[in-house]
């Protein structure tokens, strides 16, 4: 995905076991923080076709 221009950090992978609740919270916080820093995604947005 990064190859075609999605900013690094917008897509993230992690492995969280159902027993690792604290890790889950950390991961969510980290992901949201990184994505917020990147700002709204302007690419990969499908705009509706305008009908007159």
């Amino acid at each position, binding site marked *: 995905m990064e190859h*075609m*221009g999605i900013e690094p950090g917008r897509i993230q992978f992690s492995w969280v076991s159902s027993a690792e609740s604290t890790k889950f919270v950390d991961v969510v916080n980290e992901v949201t923080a990184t994505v917020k820093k990147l700002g709204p995604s302007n690419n990969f947005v*499908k705009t509706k076709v305008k009908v007159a």
Partner: protein
Amino acid sequence: MVAYTDKIKEISRRLLKECQVEMVIGFRKGTLPMMNEPCFVKNPEDVDQLVWDSNCGINLANYLTNRGEKIGIIAKGCDSRNIVTHIIENKIKREQLVIIGVPCDGMIDRRRIIRMYSEEILEVEETGGKIIVKGADFEDTLKKADVLQQNCAVCIHRNPVIHDELVADPVAEQKDVDRYADIREIEAMDPEQKWDYFENLLSACIRCYACRNACPLCYCPTCFVDESRPQWVGKSQNPMDVRTFHFLRAFHCAGRCTDCGACERACPVGINMRVFTKKLEKDSFEQFGWEAGLSLDERPPLDTYKPGDPDDFIK
């Protein structure tokens, strides 16, 4: 090339006469110059239509999917690797095949040659590394090495990896070719440039799916783009839909693509969509040391687990 053609005819005739195979899949002359077409020969009397030259870029492994009969198939290096992939993926059985291997020295890039001349090309001949192009009132000689298809110019598996017959002695493999220069160029761009590069690349795509149809890897009974319940991807010309088709197609070929170039060759508008699949081919090579279709005995990296598999993308 004439020697190759004669040998192919001779082997095919023998295989059909001795009933070793029910049909031979090969090439015959197309109706336009530089456009050979696949051909299915079932009778020994018909083998004379078979030809071999530098316009046999279509990947014949594409025609093996789920066939039941015994088949003789002409295979250059990349075709043979796709045949291996087909066997590994249970799309055909090794016992069903008589593989007629053709050591290949590359296919020529039809589009590039057409672009070189303002007039229409009516005839193209080749002799010993030279391509002779003829039009209504011109004639020109090109060096074949200068007009190879991009993927052939950087190919390092020209000889068939499996074969039962071989039409000629193996050719020398190319050494020291830089296979990924184009991909590294894209990798060096920043996200915005990458985005624009692909936007530009795909802007002409008409979503005819010729690239998918030409590819031997794309054999699903219903492709994800054709499915409507559920509909995975929009069917419009919207750039987002087009891009989604392209990157998902590429992902489906990850670790399987042999960079045979059949997809690029098939595109009516001349898009080099190989920059998607080739990135994944490069990743397979760099991260898993994998090149698709080289051996029947090894499972592809994406359907096995090895303790050493790279996992630093997982947090």
